[in-house]
């Protein structure tokens, strides 16, 4: 089933801010088997010039997860989530994410297409601070295998 092209170019702002916690960053770092001191040691992070522990470069995926899911599970979009795999992912960090951040995620649908029997959707999610300043831009492509 082709994806709904009317979603392309639209913003889908998520209603809830994501509050970055010290323990969530520590949990994420331990889950990826990486105990870089700046992820887990508040004193080390402060000594390095940060207000608190620093998030790993891919932690932003946890920040944007609910916002992206709300868009992807919208039945009007027509994405068959049972057959979805991750095609690619890219993060542009305008500044590091640190514990204490309150972040807003706004996903956009950049492109939908069908290729080789698959449906593909390219998302861009803008992550901003309470003043609206950019923190991270996350680009991702999801592939619904055999859905087209």
């Amino acid at each position, binding site marked *: 089933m082709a994806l709904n092209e009317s979603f392309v170019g639209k913003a889908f702002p998520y209603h809830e801010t994501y509050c970055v916690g010290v323990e969530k960053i520590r949990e994420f770092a331990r889950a990826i088997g990486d105990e870089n001191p700046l992820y887990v040691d508040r004193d080390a992070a402060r000594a390095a010039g940060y207000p608190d522990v620093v998030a790993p470069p891919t932690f932003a995926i946890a920040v944007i*997860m609910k916002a992206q899911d709300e868009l992807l599970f919208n039945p009007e979009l027509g994405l068959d989530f049972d057959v979805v*795999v991750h095609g690619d992912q*890219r993060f542009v960090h305008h500044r590091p994410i640190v514990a204490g951040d309150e972040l807003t995620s706004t996903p956009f649908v950049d492109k939908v297409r069908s290729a080789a029997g698959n449906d593909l959707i390219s998302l861009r999610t803008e992550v901003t601070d309470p003043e609206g300043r950019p923190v991270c831009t996350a680009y991702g492509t999801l592939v619904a295998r055999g859905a087209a």
Partner: protein
Amino acid sequence: MTPAFGSVTVGDALPPLAYSVTRKQLVKYAGAAGDFNAIHWNGRVARDVGLPDVIAHGMFTMASAGRIVTDWVGDPGLVTQFEVRFTRPVVVPDDDEGAQVELTAVIGALDADARTARVDITAKFNGQTVLGKARATVALSG
């Protein structure tokens, strides 16, 4: 210590890194990241959708690949861009050893104006690459 821009040359290899990933690790990652897709912890569901068995989250593999960069640069806040394509799955068996993944990386490009280095990463599982175009941009000192 963050490597100085002037100390880095295109083609330099970063220290390699190998890791094993078990199902327990995937369950921990699912909780940490909030991604509970059953193909990452339930073999029955994975096989039902045509996969060989449980596979690692692509984002787990990406996060692990990032370690070769952050171990080298020290300060993970200096990674300004990071991108990968997911080309093959990492199949994680139901045993205590898990799947073995080997990471290597080289300096792919330098930007003298921005004082950044592009690190090109190779991730291999069972002798085959699992990521394509895996690149991180790092801000260096000096």
